[in-house]
């Protein structure tokens, strides 16, 4: 059973502790050293943070009056600092806190120091160089999302992708993104995604947090695994102000997980517009090509036509010359012929006249003779004419005995028989 005298109320107890701590010369106006963590610059002007090392931490408060002189130079997360101040107790919470009076920066925190050293080393090796950045497909078919399976990050990523480009397949790869297992898990999952080979882009994401929280993304093995990944990696770790080593090595660094999702997929409507634009541009291009070709054809046609026309013209000139020559020659010939003809005509006329005169003369002679031979006058005088076969018989020797002959008298005819 407790001794009644040793039982205190909470307030009394706390008041005693407060009194003891705040009056202990060792705990007053002393210097402590550690890394800054979870710093909050409260609206009131008071600044709260923890000072920590690997094994312990102290809650610190810096009242506005003190904080004012450090406003432009507040300690940063992970920064190693030295604080002068007093230990005080805050009875409502029963907690003690370090009331900061002065800050001295002693250099960067260990983690931050390691971060800077690794960054420097990998940069010198060329892991961050743009030449090594793999192009990220504009329209991925499959996206591997490497992040914690719970929490808002995965929800934001999925909703962003769904909203922008629902046609893509998503491979969720649950991965620890905090604590000691984070780095090895990230490395192993990156390797698995690569050997699986289906994804054409990898999102490596984590929400915001302290330098310690994000530390997995600052490990060298993670940096090297990202660098070794055949599949392009988009990183989206923490908030905009956090840049991890993973961000530097990644093919694209997004400021946040949501931004990473936005970078991974296009907006479907944009693609449709792009395709439409492209179609129009191609059509215009083709139209222009057609126009040029038509112009060329027009040109050819005109040239050919001109060429042939010139040739035809030349031929026509030649033809005209020939024609002219021929005409000249023909005219000459005709003239010659005509002249010849004229002469012939005169000759013929003369000849004909002469012939006609001859004939006329002969005719006259014949007429006279004919008149002299007029049969009727002879017959009238008492002569007769003997016809043998219709022809006059002048020689008795022509006739043979017993032959029938016809004798013509002035009046009438008689058939006679020849006697000796």
């Amino acid at each position, binding site marked *: 059973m407790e001794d009644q005298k040793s039982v205190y109320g909470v307030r009394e107890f706390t008041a005693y502790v407060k009194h003891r701590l705040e009056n202990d010369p060792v705990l007053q106006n002393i210097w402590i050293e550690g890394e800054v963590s979870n710093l909050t610059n409260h609206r009131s002007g008071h600044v709260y943070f923890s000072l920590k090392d690997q094994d312990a931490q102290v809650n610190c408060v810096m009242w506005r009056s003190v904080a004012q002189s450090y406003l432009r130079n507040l300690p940063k997360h992970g920064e190693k600092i030295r604080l002068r101040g007093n230990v005080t107790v805050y009875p409502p919470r029963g907690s003690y806190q370090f009331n900061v009076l002065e800050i001295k920066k002693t250099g960067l925190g260990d983690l931050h120091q390691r971060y800077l050293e690794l960054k420097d080393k990998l940069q010198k090796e060329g892991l961050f160089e743009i030449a090594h950045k793999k192009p990220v497909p504009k329209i991925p078919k499959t996206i591997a999302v490497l992040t914690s399976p719970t929490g808002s990050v995965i929800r934001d990523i999925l909703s962003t992708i769904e909203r922008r480009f629902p046609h893509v397949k998503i491979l969720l790869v649950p991965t620890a993104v905090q604590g000691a297992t984070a780095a090895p898990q990230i490395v192993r999952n990156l390797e698995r995604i690569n050997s699986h080979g289906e994804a054409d882009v990898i999102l490596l994401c984590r929400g915001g947090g302290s330098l310690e929280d994000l530390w997995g993304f600052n490990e060298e093995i993670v940096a090297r695994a990202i660098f070794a990944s055949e599949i392009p990696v988009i990183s989206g770790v923490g908030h905009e102000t956090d840049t991890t080593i993973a961000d530097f090595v990644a093919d694209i660094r997004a400021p946040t997980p949501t931004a990473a999702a936005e970078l991974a997929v296009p907006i479907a409507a944009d693609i449709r517009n792009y395709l439409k634009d492209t*179609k129009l541009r191609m*059509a215009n291009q083709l139209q222009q090509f057609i126009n040029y070709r038509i112009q060329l054809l027009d040109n*050819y046609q005109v040239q050919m036509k001109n*060429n042939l026309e010139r040739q035809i013209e030349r031929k026509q000139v030649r033809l005209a010359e020939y024609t002219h020559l021929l005409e000249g020659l023909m005219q000459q010939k005709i003239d010659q012929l005509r002249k010849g003809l004229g002469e012939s005509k005169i000759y013929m006329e003369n000849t004909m006249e002469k012939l006609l005169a001859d004939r006329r003369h002969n005719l006259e002679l014949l007429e006279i003779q004919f008149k002299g031979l007029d049969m009727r006058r002879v017959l009238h005088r008492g002569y007769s004419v003997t016809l043998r076969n219709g022809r006059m018989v002048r020689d008795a020797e022509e006739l043979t005995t017993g032959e029938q002959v016809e004798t013509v008298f002035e009046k009438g005819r008689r058939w006679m028989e020849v006697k000796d």
Partner: protein
Amino acid sequence: MEEGFSLESKLRKIRSLLEQMQAGELDFDENVKLFTMGTDLIEQCRQYLDEAELKVKTLVEGTSGEEEETFE
């Protein structure tokens, strides 16, 4: 459009016909023959291009149609 029609090879052919004509070493009959061939080829090319142009028009009109759908 004619299968296997090669606009460029036909254009080359026309160009070579033209060059032959321009060289002026052919007799007239040959020239007329080349001219006829050239005119024929030019007509073929024109027809081909007309058809291509029509295709482009159809494409573009098809596209603007889609646009209207999108805004409906």
